[in-house]
């Protein structure tokens, strides 16, 4: 690692801490409820750190992720000042790959979650607003969707279609994960549609679509946001699992999951290649879970905080 990259890393840490502090200071009543959770602030800092890593990867990472520095002499090196997390069997810097891997893992997590939440919110809103047969049909669809464990759907698709490109994979992960969100949104919409402002909008002759999008959905943001925060975590775990099995992000592109797989063969003698990516996933998902829990309690004042 060069001086520049150490500085960049320090910068990322400082930025994360600043984000945490600023958020705390600028918090309104919702924010204060959020920060009442002891794990909320650290979670936010961890997230900010990793997001910074992902965004500023070319600056922070000392080497490109694909570069095999010296396959003869620099393979399987333990952590040192030059390689803070060691090198993998192909003499690539684990820290650099971890940083770039944040891009892939976090990126896929966010994009897939975006797809899932959009579809889920739309379906939930339609089902909750129109009730009767659209509701029945859509909720039966949700039941079917929840019956198949997500990973099996993806396994079936990979078994049939030889190579699934990354964008399609992200889309599929998203399309298999909207069911929970739709139920939450539906519940919210069912209670919202009885409120006066909805009745008023309908009395004024607004079309159902407009009512849903302009009036109902904006008030369902609370469960959607919580769903999203927790959803990214589960998507990241799923993507890690798929990449570990070799059917997710294709090597040599680094994803925290396939890095774990690549270090497997030397686990006994050079465990750092597999240990650190797993640790990174655990930290990020833990932060997401903490933030998600805190958000859930902050955005829904009716729930008792134990």
């Amino acid at each position, binding site marked *: 690692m060069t001086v520049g990259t150490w500085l960049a890393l320090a910068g990322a840490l400082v930025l994360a801490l600043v984000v945490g502090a600023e958020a705390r200071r600028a918090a309104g009543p919702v924010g204060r409820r959020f920060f009442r959770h002891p794990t909320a602030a650290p979670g936010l800092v961890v997230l900010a750190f990793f997001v910074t890593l992902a965004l500023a990867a070319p600056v922070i990472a000392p080497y490109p992720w694909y570069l095999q520095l010296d396959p003869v002499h620099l393979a399987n090196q333990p952590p040192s000042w030059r390689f803070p997390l060691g090198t993998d069997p192909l003499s690539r810097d684990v820290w650099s790959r971890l940083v770039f891997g944040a891009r892939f893992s976090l990126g896929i997590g966010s994009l897939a979650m975006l797809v899932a939440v959009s579809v889920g919110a739309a379906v939930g809103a339609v089902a909750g607003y129109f009730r009767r047969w659209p509701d029945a049909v859509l909720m039966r669809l949700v039941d079917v969707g929840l*019956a198949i*464990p*997500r990973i099996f759907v993806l396994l079936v698709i990979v078994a049939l*279609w030889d*190579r699934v490109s990354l964008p399609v994979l992200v889309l599929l992960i998203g399309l298999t994960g909207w069911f929970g969100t739709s139920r939450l949104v539906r519940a919210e919409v069912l209670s919202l549609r009885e409120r006066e402002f909805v009745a008023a909008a309908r009395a004024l002759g607004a079309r159902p679509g407009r009512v849903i999008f302009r009036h109902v959905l904006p008030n369902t943001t609370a469960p959607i946001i919580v769903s999203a925060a927790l959803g990214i975590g589960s998507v990241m775990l799923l993507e890690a699992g798929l990449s570990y099995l070799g059917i997710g992000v294709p090597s040599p592109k680094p994803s925290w999951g396939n890095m*774990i797989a690549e270090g497997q063969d030397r686990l006994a003698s050079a*465990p750092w290649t597999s240990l650190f990516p*797993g640790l990174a996933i*655990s930290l990020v998902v833990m932060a997401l*879970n903490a933030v998600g829990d805190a958000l859930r309690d902050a955005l829904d004042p009716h729930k008792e905080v134990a």
Partner: protein
Amino acid sequence: MTAWIVRRLAASIAIVLAVVTLTFFLIHLAGGSPCGQSDAQSVAPEVCARLRAQFGLDRPLWEQYGKYLWAVLHGELGQSFWQRRPVIAALQDALPNTLLLAGTALVIDFTLGLALGVYQAARARRFGDIALGNAALFVNSMPTFWLGLVLLLVFAQWLHLVPVGGTHDPVLCSRLDSLQCVADRLWHLALPATTLGVVGAAATARFQRNAMLEVLAQDFVRTARAKGLRERRVLLVHALRNALLPSITLFGLAFPFLLTGAVLVEWVFAWPGMGWLSVMAIGQRDYPVVTATALVASAMVTLGNLLADALYVAADPRIRVRGA
């Protein structure tokens, strides 16, 4: 009560049939794709030929669907190209292993999770609660396969305390014919079941802690304490019984988690269950096996939900009184 059971059973069967339809749709979609060229988003050429042969794409769609449905209902799930025998035979070998693993993990999950949840509730907001809470959060956020690898590294490769994988010693215990073989199986089961169980227990503990705290805030608990009953009795006899109820819903949610986790954990430990079978079959582009395991997994999840719902209704007298 029986009317409710019949309705739920019918709904469950409908769900499984819908899943079968979905798999048919997927297979048919793949069979209609262009194949032969090895470029992105195309079906593997080996798979193509077999798909075409399986369905005879010249027949009308509903006829193909009918044939497929009939075959599935009769347990004819196709032929495995990799193993050169019927898929149902491969499943018969694999399913008991997955049930064993998932069952043991479920037991570990709930005993450990409930115990931890009760302990945390008893020590609410003190050091024990906070420390365990964070530890549970961390464990619940770990990829199960990574935890498996770490445990494998420490206990199998460094300490040689447990075997590196497999279900049994192929020499001594190819048949389960002595009690020593039972012990051998348990020894092989220890690490994979612990991996799955511990990650699930973390989630169960968090849930149970909150449920317990809710119950502990209620009036009847205050009454029990005022009567002078020992705290342990209040906790374990009075509060827990009522706090167990929400955990039954967790039981239903555990099935998808366990089956998903089983895929990865079975792969790490070379445990020849359904998940392992699925991943091996993918390496061979053996799609009948993969679709069959997806079907079985869905059936298991649906059954699990049904059981959980029935358990909940049986356990909660308030629901029964409502005349469901």
